[in-house]
């Protein structure tokens, strides 16, 4: 398959591994931000090929993982209402809320539907005018344009029974939160290629400058990741801290202008809680005043006390790269994909699931 096979070529990949090891004169700690990147790295064992010169820590770029518990409980409560249909991407269905997950809500009679696009959810709304159809709008900047488009269409077409449960988060504020967190050890970032396909990389330039870290926009295949790592290591070795683009076949500096325009028309930034991490200022999106009528949280106000997380789950530390999944005491014992304590063990982009699927065993946490 073109544009895939070339980037999975073993010989090119292994040559890059050699080049990275030759270039690094000391140990560098890098973070790949996106969960899709984490899965490729762990699945192929690339992190182990690069040790000890390169330490890879895994970032918060798993939309399912950082969606707060309270919003998942809210989604489950909406799904159980007889007057509502909850539409979601499939990934969200097995993520544990405080009591149950959406699959259990569905088994208990809730109307939960897996869709592949928010526009499909809009279609569900048009076909079921007697119900309120809520789309669980999860994700980073990558999924925001399509979600914005669905709300825009709903308004244009007068589909009043459509609403979004918005859980959108943004990458740059999360990078800042990691950089300023006590004990941060990340020295360079592989920025998420898909997010930058939408946003471009202008907003990363002040981060690289102000915090003195190299940031390389990187793709998702083994060769992409290794090339991104090599570019980051070269910057570190040469004392540079710039934004560079490895993912040239997809990303340009200004991103996708129409996509950015529709996000801007429908959403505005807001403070948002990240599961396991806490509130990060200006790190989320919410519907603008003109589209507020489509906000599911206003239509179905939250009831009950805020839920609390499992005390054993270290998802927060995993998501900011402070510990690796196999350093968590619950990893692989109390927490498995079948009975997860936290979202990173469930999602196809979660770091804990990546480790478990690759057969990594638990290690004792460093003292």
């Amino acid at each position: 398959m073109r544009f895939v096979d070339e980037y999975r070529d073993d010989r090119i990949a292994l040559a890059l591994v050699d080049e990275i090891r030759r270039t690094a004169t000391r140990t560098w700690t890098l973070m790949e931000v996106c969960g899709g990147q984490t899965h490729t790295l762990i699945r192929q064992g690339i992190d182990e090929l690069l040790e000890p010169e390169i330490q890879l820590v895994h970032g918060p770029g798993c939309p399912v993982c950082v969606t707060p518990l309270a919003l998942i409980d809210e989604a489950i409560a909406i799904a159980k209402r007889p007057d509502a249909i909850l539409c979601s991407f499939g990934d969200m269905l097995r993520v544990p809320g405080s009591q149950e997950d959406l699959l259990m809500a569905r088994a208990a009679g809730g109307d939960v539907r897996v869709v592949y696009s928010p526009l499909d959810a809009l279609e569900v709304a048009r076909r079921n005018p007697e119900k309120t159809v809520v789309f669980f709008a999860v994700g980073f900047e990558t999924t925001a344009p399509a979600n914005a488009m669905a709300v825009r269409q709903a308004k244009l077409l007068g589909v009043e029974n459509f609403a979004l449960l918005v859980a959108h988060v943004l990458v740059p504020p999360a990078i800042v939160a990691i950089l300023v967190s006590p004990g941060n050890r990340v020295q360079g970032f592989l920025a998420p290629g898909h997010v930058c396909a939408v946003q471009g990389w202008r907003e990363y330039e002040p981060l690289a400058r102000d915090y003195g870290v190299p940031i390389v926009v990187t793709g998702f295949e083994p060769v992409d990741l290794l090339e991104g790592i090599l570019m980051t290591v070269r910057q570190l070795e040469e004392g540079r801290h710039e934004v560079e683009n490895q993912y040239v076949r997809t990303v340009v500096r200004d991103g996708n202008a129409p996509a950015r325009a529709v996000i801007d028309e429908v959403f505005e930034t807001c403070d948002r809680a990240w599961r396991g991490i806490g509130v990060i200022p200006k790190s989320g999106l919410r519907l603008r005043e003109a589209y507020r009528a489509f906000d599911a949280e206003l239509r179905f106000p939250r009831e009950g006390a805020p839920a609390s997380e499992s005390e054993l789950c270290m998802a927060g530390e995993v998501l900011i790269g402070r510990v690796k999944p196999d350093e968590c005491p619950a990893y692989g014992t109390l927490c498995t994909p079948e009975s997860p304590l936290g979202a990173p063990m469930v999602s196809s982009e979660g770091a804990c699931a990546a480790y478990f699927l690759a057969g990594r065993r638990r290690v004792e946490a460093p003292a």
Partner: protein
Amino acid sequence: MSEDPGSDAEERPRDFVLQCPVPLPPGASVLLGHGSGGKLTHQLIRDVLVPILGDVAGSELARLGDAAVVETDGLRLAFTTDAFVVTPAFFPGSNIGELAVNGTVNDLAMMGARPLFLSAALILEEGLPLEDLGLVVTAMAEACRRAKVALVTGDTKVVERGSADGLFVITSGVGLVPDGVEVGPERARPGDRIIVSGPVGSHGVAVMSRRAGIEFEGELSSDTRPLTGLVRAMLAAGDVRVLRDATRGGLASVLNELAESSGVSMVAEEKAVPVLPPVRAACEMLGLDPLYVANEGVCVAIVAPEDAEAVLAAARAHPAGEHAAIVGEVVEGPPKVALRTGLGGTRPLIMLAGDQLPRIC
């Protein structure tokens, strides 16, 4: 109603207390994942159904083969049943009717049997267009002709609108196992080679692409077909020890089941597993691993090492096996499956808990 439920409960004869060896989790209910063919399905069968059935379940049920092989009057009969609930009922390349016949025919073929007779039950939802029913039954008839089986008995039921998704089809089948044929899920030995009869993932991706409303360039169609002729050719070419059609849960789940049944380890080569380019492309887009996607016309054969090339050649000479490939080997060790990946790494090919869920981005 008793006035004093407490004493009523106390006086209830002990014989009436339902007991099963493993207590059912209180308040638990069936999840869709219990139908995925993965770990949850196995837990449901092993921990809930088989214990309740107790002595009623013959040793053949616990063997968890594709079909049971029972002996009567000196004849070895293979017997199986299968329910088909696929959504949508019509998908690229086929429909639920052809699937229901081929599925049962293939379950019989996996025991080395020659399929003979089928039954079919149709559960129809009120409002189903008769035209659709006609298309499904026409496909069933064609599939029976192709597999050379007779549909000898059946049943139809109609349920209220909303109680079934258009229609469900249930088929059972009986076949005869010829003398000298010995295949079974527990017969894999270290050193045996693992053959896959065709490209994997085509059926599941065809169904999912229709469900997702995604159209891909190039044809994506279900691989449903009878495997009887292919199996006969392979059995004639050498010592085939195990056969299993890689349906629900895909190749990965089937290899895990067989490793478990035979008490052996297996090592597969990721790059040796045939996958058609449009199927690979679709899996990339939907975030699926083709090794876990369902097939309806692909089987796994575990073959004695000295006969592997001959059996592979026989498979490739048959139209249903032209893309057959040796994908791995049986090795000594605990019942696990490892996958060798491109960069020289190895990762365990585990059985998934439930269904693969399409990812967000």
